[in-house]
């Protein structure tokens, strides 16, 4: 689910990397190599111009993963979900423990040790603070104004969304990408430094220690 206000225009090249690099032969060699390595995607990729999924599930960053069982019930809530190591230099996070947990769930279903208890799930999923709902409305208004040709007027509402829900990196980064970080008096890099650097930018998934793979 691409959380992109710019829709297919912005998200498209990432969904069809081979087509993207074929149309731009001047791209750096490593970008072309990465695109070839990724190849055609084998899973469903959707475009979410309104950040609807983040709104419905109270998500604050990307990539965020949710596990949903065969009955449509959530069994693991929002957490960082890297399924490869392409951002490992930035995050310092290895995707292997998460991938092993995922394989365990695919094999064992609801009996997997990685499936969370209902109480734990509710605690993690439910946003009690009404300012979070208000932040989401301010962000939605900002998107509407941006798309209807009023990018400057959108900034005040994006700022208000960021103020009301400071934990949302989606609100910060999407807004910076639409206009300019200067409009917000900060940069993504500065914001990451404020919380202690890129190695703590993503809270690691809560995986039971007993299930860690022994190497």
């Amino acid at each position, binding site marked *: 689910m691409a959380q992109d206000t710019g829709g297919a225009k*912005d998200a498209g090249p990432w969904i069809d990397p081979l087509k993207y690099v074929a149309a731009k032969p001047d791209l750096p060699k490593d970008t072309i190599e990465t695109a070839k390595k990724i190849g055609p995607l084998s899973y469903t990729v959707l475009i979410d111009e309104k950040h609807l999924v983040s*709104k419905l*599930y109270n998500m604050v960053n990307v990539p965020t993963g949710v596990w949903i069982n065969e009955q449509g*019930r959530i069994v693991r809530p929002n957490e960082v979900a890297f399924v490869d190591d392409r951002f490992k230099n930035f995050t310092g996070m290895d995707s292997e423990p998460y991938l092993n947990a995922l394989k365990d769930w695919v094999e064992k279903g609801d009996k997997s040790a990685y499936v969370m208890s209902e109480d734990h799930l*509710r605690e993690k999923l439910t946003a009690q603070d009404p300012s979070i709902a208000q932040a989401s409305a301010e962000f939605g208004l900002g998107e509407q104004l941006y798309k209807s040709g009023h990018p400057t007027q959108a900034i005040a509402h994006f700022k208000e969304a960021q103020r009301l829900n400071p934990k949302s990196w989606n609100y910060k980064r999407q807004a910076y990408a639409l206009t300019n970080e200067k409009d917000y008096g900060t940069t993504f890099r500065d914001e990451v430094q404020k919380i202690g650097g890129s190695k703590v930018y993503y809270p690691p998934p809560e995986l039971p220690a007993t299930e860690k793979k022994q190497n």
Partner: protein
Amino acid sequence: MKASMSSGLLLILILATLPAAAKELHATIVYDDTATDLTSAREDAGQLWITSADLKRATRFEVKPQGVCRDELCFPLPKAKREAFIHKDAASGNSRQTWFNMIAFADLVHQPVAHDAALSTWYFGLRSDQRRQLSSLQAPDFTLPDLQGKPHRLSDFHGKKILLVTWASW
């Protein structure tokens, strides 16, 4: 100084007792993430009044005897405060317009509202009944398009395990 303060107070008192004059405006509302330009709207003391026809067009909600309803969903209006939600104009010619107060309704259903005064645009967020869905642990359903524009609904994948992952280009 004292004289100017009391004349200021007097002015405030006069304004407060005057019948509120509703301002007619060209407004846009965003409901369920869909923007609708209203045919007419009135703003009065922070309240947004829209016609019953626009209510149906922009939100698919309708005022019925049992409340404000859409499909199976119905929100009863508090009887004692009905005039805070619905206002009928005095008959003029053949028409008698009915107005609905979107802000009072949002308050009733615990729905956040964001407003841009300069562009007369109101955004209505998730109602509390939509937000509560998450605590049922049933995955909130949605429909979104793929790159070719083909819509996919989450519940179409029922019977399979789903790894739902968000990402972004930015």
